[in-house]
C-alpha cells in the first residue's frame, strides 16, 4: 500500500463516513432499472416497476425506511457483498451459484423465460405456449429443444451479461450459435432492432414490454416457455449472508403480503397476470 493509495483510501473513508450515519435504519435496495416491467426508469428519471412496488410494500410492513438505488446489473452482487447497499430487488432469480455468494429471501415472484427471434428470418413455426421445466426435461420436451437448437444454429443470439439466461443460453445453444452478452437489456433491444443479432433469451415479461412497443414489431416469441434449471425456483431478494435478520424480516413480510393478496394485486398491475408465489401452507 503506497502513499497515494493510502490517501485515496482516506478520502474514500471520509466520504463514506458522511453516509454511514444518515443511513442507520434505512434499507438501501438496489435495482437495475432497465428490465421493465420488473424495474425501469420512467421519463421523469424515477425508478418504477414490480420490484419497486413490492419493495416499498415489504418495507412498509417491516416498518423500515427504504431507498431504491439504480445499479448496473454487471457487478450488482459484488457491490452488495461489499456493502454498497443492503438488498437487491431486480427480478433476480434464486440460483445455487448465486447462493454461494449471497443469501436470498423466499421468492416474491415467478415467471418464465423465452427466446425471441427476428421475424424476417422466416424460421419454422413453433408452439410458443409449450412449457419446459429445465430441471426435469421429458422425452417429448427434449425433442422440442433439439428442434429449436437446430433452427438457431449459426445464428447470433443476445443475452444480458451476468444473467441466468446467459448461463442457460450458453448451456443450451452455446455450441451451435454465436452468443453476445450485453450490459443492459435495452442495448440488446437496440441491436435486435438494428439486426445485429437474430434473437435473444430473456425473461418473458421483459420481452413482452419490448415486443409491444413501437420497435418491437421486428421480432416475436420463439420456442417454448422455459423455466427451472439454472433459473431456480423464482425471483427473490438478494441479501448479504451476514444479514440473517434482514432475510427473516423480508420473508415474514413476503409471507404476509402473499397471504392477503397484495403481491397478486401488484403482479396483475405490472404483468397483467398473477406471478406471485403460492401462499405457504
Amino acid at each position, binding site marked *: 500500500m*503506497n*502513499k*497515494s*493509495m493510502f*490517501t*485515496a*483510501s482516506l*478520502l*474514500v*473513508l471520509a*466520504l*463514506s463516513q458522511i*453516509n*454511514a450515519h444518515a*443511513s442507520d435504519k434505512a434499507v438501501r435496495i438496489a435495482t437495475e*432499472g*432497465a428490465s421493465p416491467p420488473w424495474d*425501469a*426508469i420512467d*421519463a*421523469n*428519471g424515477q425508478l418504477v416497476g414490480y420490484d419497486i412496488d413490492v419493495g416499498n410494500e415489504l418495507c412498509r410492513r417491516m416498518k423500515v425506511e427504504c431507498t431504491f438505488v*439504480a*445499479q*448496473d446489473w454487471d*457487478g450488482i452482487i*459484488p*457491490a452488495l457483498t*461489499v*456493502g*454498497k447497499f443492503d438488498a437487491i430487488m431486480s427480478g433476480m432469480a434464486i440460483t445455487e451459484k448465486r447462493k454461494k455468494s449471497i443469501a436470498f429471501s423466499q421468492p416474491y415472484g415467478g415467471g418464465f423465460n423465452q427466446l425471441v427471434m427476428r421475424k424476417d428470418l422466416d424460421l419454422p413455426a413453433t408452439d410458443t405456449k409449450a412449457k419446459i421445466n429445465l430441471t426435469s426435461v421429458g422425452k417429448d420436451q427434449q425433442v422440442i429443444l433439439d428442434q429449436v437448437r437446430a433452427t438457431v444454429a449459426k445464428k447470433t443470439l443476445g443475452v444480458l451479461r451476468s444473467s441466468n439466461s446467459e448461463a442457460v443460453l450458453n448451456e443450451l445453444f452455446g455450441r451451435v450459435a454465436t452468443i453476445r452478452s450485453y450490459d*443492459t437489456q*435495452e*442495448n440488446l*433491444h*437496440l441491436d435486435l*432492432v438494428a439486426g445485429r443479432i437474430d434473437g435473444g433469451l430473456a425473461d418473458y415479461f421483459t420481452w413482452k414490454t419490448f415486443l409491444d*412497443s413501437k*420497435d418491437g414489431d421486428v421480432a416475436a416469441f420463439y420456442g417454448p416457455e422455459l423455466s427451472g434449471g439454472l433459473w431456480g425456483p423464482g425471483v427473490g431478494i438478494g441479501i448479504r449472508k451476514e444479514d440473517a435478520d434482514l432475510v427473516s424480516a423480508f420473508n415474514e413480510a413476503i409471507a404476509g403480503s402473499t397471504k392477503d393478496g397484495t403481491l397478486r394485486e401488484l403482479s396483475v398491475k405490472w404483468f397483467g397476470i398473477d406471478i406471485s408465489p403460492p401462499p405457504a401452507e
Partner: protein
Amino acid sequence: MSAFVTQFTHGLYVTILVATVSGALGTILGLFTAIIKLSQLRLPALIAQGYTTIVRGLPELLVILVIYFGGTAVITAISGRYIEINPLGAGIAALTVVFGAYCAEIFRGAINSISPGQWEAASSLGLSPWQAWLLVILPQMIRVALPAFGNLCVSLVKDTSLISVVGLTDIMRVAFVGAGSMRAPLTFYLAASALYLALTSLSLASFRLLERRFLVPGNEKG
C-alpha cells in the same frame, strides 16, 4: 423528453463536480508524488515510481473498475466492518488516482527544468528546504507545467465519462439510459458529445488565458 433535459443538467453537474474535485485532489497527490520521486528517500521514491508506472500503464477503465470493486473490499478488510462508498466517492477516488499519476510526471519534469542555481540561491538566502520549495521552486514550476497540465485537465473531463460504466449518473450515463429507454441513441449520444465538447473547449480556453497570465514578460516563446 424535457425530463431528460433536467437529467442532462444534473449529469452535467455531476461531471463538473467529479472533474473538479478529482482534479484538485489529483493535483495535490501528483505534487506529493513528484516531490517524493525527486527526494533522496529511496523506498518512498521507489513506491512512488511504482505507482506512476503502474497506473499509467493500465487502461483508465480498468483502474476505475479495480478501485470501484476492489476499493470497498480493501477498505472493508482494513477497517474490519462494512463501510459504504457511494458511487460518487468511488468515482472521485478512481479519477484522483489516475490524474495524480499523470500529474506527477508533468510536475517532475517541470521541477527538473528549474535551474539548480535557484535552489542554491534560495539556500544561500537562508531559506529552509520547505521554504525554498514553496517560495522559489513551486511558483516557477507552475509556469513550465501549465501547458501539459491544461491538456491533462481536458483529458480528465473526458475520462469522467468512464465513471458512467460503474453507475454514476454523469452526462454519459444519462445519455446511455436515455438512448436505451427512448431507443434514440443518435440523439442522446450527439447531445452528450456536444456537452463534452463544450466542457473541453471551456477548460482549454481558460488554460490558454492562464498561460498568458503566467507568461513572464520577455520570456515569450518565439
